[in-house]
């Protein structure tokens, strides 16, 4: 029959209009529900709301601390520097030998980084990780983070410290 298709289309839009008020999708108890069958609005109001990042998400690099001493885990072995395809890392160690050696300075050229994660795979001392931070815009042309900044990043984004990621 004619006009059936028109009526069907109208009913779909009206259903979505009503569901945008009655639907379940949205934020509930701090968690975003995205279940299409529940209906409702799917917009994430970005600056006010943020989607949780997955554990494997590769954002900016961060340095981790030893949970007991509170010092950086990095031993300045240089494995990450050889692994980096972009040559965006530099490291300087102190005079210590073997595992006692500690990094004195570390630079991370964020503007050159391609977030491949090879440096993290190369690291033998659980010293660096990719954080879930993706809001990295800056008004400077070259963004270079030093060790202090990287440790601060670690304090903010290390999942082991906040106990969110138990199985790791």
């Amino acid at each position, binding site marked *: *029959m*004619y*006009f059936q298709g*028109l009526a069907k*289309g*109208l009913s*779909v*839009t*009206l259903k*979505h*209009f009503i*569901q*945008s*008020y009655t639907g379940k999708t949205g934020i509930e108890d701090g968690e975003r529900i995205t279940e299409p069958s529940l209906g*409702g*609005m*799917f*917009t994430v*109001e970005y600056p006010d709301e943020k989607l949780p990042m997955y554990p494997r998400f590769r954002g900016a690099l961060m340095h981790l601390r030893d949970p007991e001493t509170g010092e950086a885990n990095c031993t300045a072995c240089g494995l990450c520097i050889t692994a980096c395809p972009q040559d965006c890392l530099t490291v300087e160690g102190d005079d210590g030998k073997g595992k006692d050696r500690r990094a004195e300075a570390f630079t991370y050229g964020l503007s050159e980084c391609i977030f491949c994660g090879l440096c993290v795979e190369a690291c033998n001392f659980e010293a660096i990780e990719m954080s879930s931070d993706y809001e990295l815009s800056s008004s400077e042309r070259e963004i270079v983070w030093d060790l202090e900044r990287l440790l601060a990043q670690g304090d903010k984004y290390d999942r082991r410290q906040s106990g969110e990621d138990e199985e790791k």
Partner: protein
Amino acid sequence: MEFLKDLFVNIGLWFSGWLTGFMPAWGVEVVTGFLGAIILVFIGLFAVLILTWGERKVIGRMQDRIGPNRWGPYGLFQPIADGIKMLTKEDIIPTGADRWVHLVAPILVIIPAVLIYAVIPFGDGLRGADLNIGILYIVALSTIGTISILMAGWSSNNKYSLLGAFRAVAQLITYEIPLVLSIITVVLLTGSMSMVEIVENQTVPYMVSMPLVFLVFMVAASAELYRAPFDMIEADSELIAGYFTEYSGMKFVMFFMAEYINLLAMSGVIVTLFMGGWRFFGLEEILPFLNPFIFFAKCAFVIFLFWWTRATFPRIRIDHMLGMAWKALVPIALVNLLLVGLVDKLVEGTLLTSGVLLIVNIIEMVILLAILDKVGGKTRAKTMERVAAQQG
């Protein structure tokens, strides 16, 4: 209490009474007429603010989005922000443009849009003027807007603008006919072209007694307003922006405003002709000050219908659109006119007439669907045959 009962009319009476105290009669007429005109224009301008916000919000909701929500409660100040942004834009006149026609077109487009408000009755006694040819006046005005669209398209020195303007004229000429034919049906039943008398004679809204006429009018009206799915003149995917491609800044806003002023005006006409205007089951007699609110609530309903269809239907191809008017809407409207005239002559009594009209309309719809099924099925079979022959 008596003053409050018919608040808006009484304010007007009190004001003109106060003026008579120190003014000659012609002075009172001039001042009240001038103030009334300003109020009517501002209804249109205020409608633009509310309607742009509402359209984005409603269509957003229908597409599972939020719509504007950043400035003000529920994003209500968004149109103001848009207006400020538009005011600061550069005003460009393209090379080779017909300068004066280009400048005058946006001003001319808004004048007929605003003038329609003069005859729309917002309530019992709340109207600009009670012309005895009110509806004819509206039909005449709604065509003038097209001249300014043609001016805009012609003067822009841009082929897309010109194409859009040509389409506008073709569309208007085509859809004016079913529109006027369904208006004639209403006028035939009422026996008057005055908007006020049309409302007063509608005990049963014509939308209920003549659903087919209402449908034809709605389709023709949305084509007349150049709204989706009939937005051929500004079909973004084909014509960039149609006739106002070359307009920027405040001149663009004028076209934009005219569109929305026309939208409210046309929904006001629909409410007056088919939904009983300010009347609502006798409520208008008990609380007359509610009249304009009833009127605007009905307008909001009609406008929601326009938004709803815009959010649902894709644009119709131009030959299909013109074909639909000539092959479907005009015959339906003509048959309707004939049948309504017959019923009006043969049946006595308002309620009985409405009932008979409803039955006639429903029978007509069933026959129409049967014919469409047969004709459409034949066309489809032919097309499928051709496609099969081409492939095989």
